[in-house]
């Protein structure tokens, strides 16, 4: 399997954390302990909806002390192509899912002297794990957690109990916003900032950091993109000699997999770079949605990240 080792799991508990967020506790079907992971890691969950396979990355919130379970948090997104909707409507305690081994694209920099954790909405899930690890290590850290209102904060009680006044909440409905001019000045040299949340928030925080003279090496973010749907098109896998149709509600990678080709992937969210594929030719315009390739690579039209990007046009020929 291109995504690495997979672990069949059983859902042992589903918790409605807020109106739009559910937390799932997963245990290995084999009964064995799940692999330990470093904070910031995610797994890709495979869902089977009557033969239609969907795979979404979800950050790991925590692992039970005895290793028996993982927790993930899932936000129900309004324009979901099906993944988060399926998790919310169809997955109940006792059901089976498949997860990949944990992969960490958002690790804590262990040489850092202080850590600023900034989360918006469901972006709290990796931050939650990172905060716990920093607390265990008695490291210096702050948590800045922004949400629509207190009712939509999925982890407030647990975070408050564990982190006390290191947790600062920002509620949109109270006109409270995470402001770089407040959290960035006077931080000691060697501070690292980690931000996970909505696109606009990540961009604003990173820009604020650079403007404040922070080195790029100290600014970290993670954003998983849900592959945007779009117009249908044809994909030709030149080496395999296969032509397939990419439906409007399907990602390019999903269509390739449906055609029976085991294409490379890891995060399925445009972040890791594993699914980078050479474009042989295309009749149409490439729509790049990833955060991995550089702008020059996007412009060159020679590469595509199959997990989140697609074609606006007739036919795409890939070296697969």
């Amino acid at each position, binding site marked *: 399997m291109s995504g690495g080792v997979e672990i069949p799991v059983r859902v042992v508990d589903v918790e409605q954390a807020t109106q739009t967020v559910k937390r799932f506790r997963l245990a290995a079907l084999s009964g064995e302990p799940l692999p330990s992971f470093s904070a910031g890691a995610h797994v890709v969950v495979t869902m089977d909806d009557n033969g239609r396979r969907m795979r979404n990355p979800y950050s790991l919130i925590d692992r039970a002390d005895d290793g028996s379970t993982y927790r993930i948090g899932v936000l129900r997104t309004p324009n979901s192509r099906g993944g988060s909707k399926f998790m919310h409507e169809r997955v109940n305690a006792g059901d089976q899912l498949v997860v990949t081994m944990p992969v960490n694209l958002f690790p804590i*920099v262990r*040489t850092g002297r202080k850590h600023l954790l900034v989360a918006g909405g469901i972006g709290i899930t990796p931050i939650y794990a990172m905060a716990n690890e920093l607390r265990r290590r008695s490291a210096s850290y702050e948590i800045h957690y922004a949400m629509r209102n207190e009712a939509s904060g999925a982890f407030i009680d647990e975070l408050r109990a564990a982190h006390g006044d290191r947790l600062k909440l920002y509620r949109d409905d109270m006109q409270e916003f995470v402001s770089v001019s407040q959290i960035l000045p006077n931080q*000691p*040299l060697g501070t690292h900032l980690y931000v996970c949340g909505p696109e606009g928030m990540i961009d604003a925080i990173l820009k604020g950091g650079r403007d*404040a*003279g922070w080195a790029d090496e100290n600014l970290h973010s993670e954003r998983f993109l849900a592959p945007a749907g779009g117009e249908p098109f044809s994909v030709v896998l030149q080496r395999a000699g296969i032509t397939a149709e990419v439906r409007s509600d399907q990602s390019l990678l999903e269509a390739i997999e449906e055609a029976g080709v085991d294409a490379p992937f890891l995060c399925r969210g445009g972040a890791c770079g594993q699914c980078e594929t050479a474009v042989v030719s295309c009749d149409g315009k490439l729509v790049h949605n990833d955060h991995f390739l550089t702008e020059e690579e996007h412009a060159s039209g020679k590469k595509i990240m199959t997990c989140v990007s697609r074609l606006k046009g007739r036919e795409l020929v890939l070296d697969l």
Partner: protein
Amino acid sequence: MSAIKSRPIYPGLKVDERAKRHLVAAEGEGALAVLEAFADAPDAWSRMTLLYTPGGSAPANHSETLQGRAPDAFHLHPTRQTLMTRLNALLDTATMGTRLYAAGVEGHIGEVVAAGLAHGVDHLSIRTEHRGSLARRVQCVHCKGFIDDVTISPVPCAHCGVPLFVRDHYSRRLAAFQGVSINAETPDEVPASEELYK
């Protein structure tokens, strides 16, 4: 280019205009790298803390030239050791937005980078430029003693006497190249030293 990946590369000083404070540690001819790099950034001098030790460049009197550019703070040090003491004290209280620069001989750059690392600064965000001698700081892998200003290989270890082949293998943490016994299997033969790192 060395085939050994740990061999450090010094891309040259490049001013980060967004930095709120430029913390510059220069040794010897490294003064010229600072003057050149900051020539196009006149505003940066008013946000600069400049530490300088003349090393072998004392007769050229770069310190007066540097001071003449009116950095916000200027500290002249008699030796690299005293410069490092002050640099470490400054790093202890520095805030984010401070950019660290190192220019001079490799041993000096290495010590500045190691001090930065110890304060949580990523080595890639430290701007470095090599000027002056190619002399190396070497650690004997056998007795762990350090030897400074090594220009020849093999070099006899100043601590245990073993003749050391100086490798490109570099430790960023120790700020030193690795010296390995050149004749472990034939202790009677000591190859002639060559001057490689003048």
